[in-house]
């Protein structure tokens, strides 16, 4: 099977007072119609990786290949049409919509990108319906919507561009618990309906389990465990993955607080377990 996206030995570094290696030789692939989840604690390099996938971050080493072509850096030049089928949903719904442009207009820009690649075109209202929003919202501005509605509009805009690869950088973390699962589920359905690959980034393993075919667990810039989601959930091999799963609060009424993963950070979390990788 040809891969839609291939990330190979990607290294991302930030050069400030000290050099921070945010992503350290990470490789992963996404096939069309596949949902890959990337999980890990804050600061483990998930977002850096997502930004590098769409071309917002310059890799220090390694490559991001989309359909056999290297993803160009999102510079000041206009992005070529072949790469506008990579779309992204951002973490912060408040800054993902232009405050001065009506919602319908912003979705239309996504539709225009799809039409430029030869799509027959669609109406903004259809997309609002698909993400579960009333069609009257086309004439609203971002500040008139709630956070969850904004995120749905951002998803609608990204989907209206008919992406073949949708990168979602913690799209649900700014939402309340009740809408997190529904938005995540909706994203999976809509992406799969369109035959697109979905790279879903989250720190919430419980939700990821529900929507992802495969899961990649990152810790301090490295992949510590990867493979079929159910395997990882039911039988975690790497100590860090185990710690992540045990950190999910359970409504068991006993009142025990989950162990905070980053608090003590045992040395074993950093080890490489070959049997925890590419589990099938």
């Amino acid at each position, binding site marked *: 099977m040809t891969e839609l996206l291939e990330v190979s030995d990607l290294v991302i570094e930030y050069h400030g007072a000290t050099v921070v290696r945010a992503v350290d030789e990470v490789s992963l692939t996404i096939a069309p119609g596949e949902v890959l989840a990337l999980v890990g604690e804050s600061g483990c390099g998930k977002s850096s990786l997502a930004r590098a996938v*769409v071309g*917002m971050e310059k890799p220090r080493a390694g490559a991001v290949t989309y359909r056999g072509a290297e993803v160009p850096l*999102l510079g*000041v*030049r*206009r*992005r*070529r*049409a072949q*790469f*506008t089928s*990579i*779309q*992204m949903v*951002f973490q*912060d719904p408040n*800054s*993902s*919509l*232009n*405050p*001065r*442009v009506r919602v319908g207009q*912003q979705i239309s*820009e*996504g539709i*225009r*990108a799809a039409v*430029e690649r030869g799509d027959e075109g669609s109406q903004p209202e259809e997309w609002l319906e698909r993400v579960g929003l009333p069609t009257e919202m086309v004439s609203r501005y971002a500040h008139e919507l709630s956070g969850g509605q904004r995120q749905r509009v*951002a998803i609608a*805009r*990204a989907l209206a*561009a008919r992406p073949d690869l949708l990168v979602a950088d913690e799209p649900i973390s700014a939402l309340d618990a009740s809408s997190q699962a529904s938005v995540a589920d909706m994203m999976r359905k809509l992406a799969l309906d369109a035959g697109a690959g979905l790279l879903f980034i989250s720190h919430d393993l419980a939700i990821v389990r529900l929507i992802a075919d495969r899961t990649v667990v990152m810790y301090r810039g490295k992949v510590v465990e990867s493979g079929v989601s159910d395997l990882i959930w039911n039988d975690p091999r790497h100590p860090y993955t185990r710690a992540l799963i045990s950190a999910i609060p359970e409504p068991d009424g006993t009142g025990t607080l989950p162990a905070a993963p980053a608090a003590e950070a045992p040395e074993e979390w950093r080890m490489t377990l070959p049997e925890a990788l590419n589990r099938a």
Partner: protein
Amino acid sequence: MRTRWLKIPAAWITPLGVIGAVIAITWVGIAFTARLWVPFDPLSQDLPRLQAPGIDTLMGTDALGRDIFSRLMTGASVTIPLALMLVLMSLAVGTLIGAIAGYFGKWVDELLMRLTDLVMAFPTVILAMVVAAALGPSLFNAVIAAFVVSWPQYARMTRSIVLGLRTQNYVMAGRLMGFSPFKTLRVDIAPNVVGPILVLASLDVGTAILLLSGLSFLGLGAQPPTAEWGSMISAAIQNFDSWWIGLFPGLAILTVVMAFNFVGDSLRDIFDPTSQVSRAGARS
């Protein structure tokens, strides 16, 4: 009308803002119509010299027997349109340069910002005087001189706003959809820069009038016999006893500058929510 267009809640319409707007609009109206209704030819020297304000000459006459009221009103049609034009020119050039610097970054930014630093390093009036003196004294050259010193502040402000907007997610989303750089500037950036720049421009009209009259006062702007407020005040120095020669042009400058400042201040309150909060707090 205006309030509905800008969507200003009634509470934001401040007395000072309304007074400022009324005075400013009145002056602009005078500026564009004065030549049609002033009682005397502003250049004719037929009246008695140095006549005190009275019934036939509302604001008296100057040392050459010209009616000050007529000169003052037609003076508005010299200074105000030029000041507005100056502001528009600085705004257009300054925002364009600032937007390009902020958006393209790197060496473009470096080059353009060092250029604005160079201009801003000089005291405004001194640099304007140098330019005006070098080009030769005339109103047109005074406008050019004032333009040279006034565009950098627009460039600075636009650049800083664009720099902040450039990394906003919606700008990135547009780029991912294949927006060209100029579409990004037009759709995602420009509408979000307009507010603060409008405030700066309305505050700047007053400064522009002061600068133009200042240059004329120094003899670097309007040349005799043109009726211009700054040169009228300058002429008043020769006849200090006739208070009315300098007082009325001075009052004209005062009212128009203050009016535009009031308008700018209330626009700032409208566009900047944080100043809203502080003012509401001060009121209660």
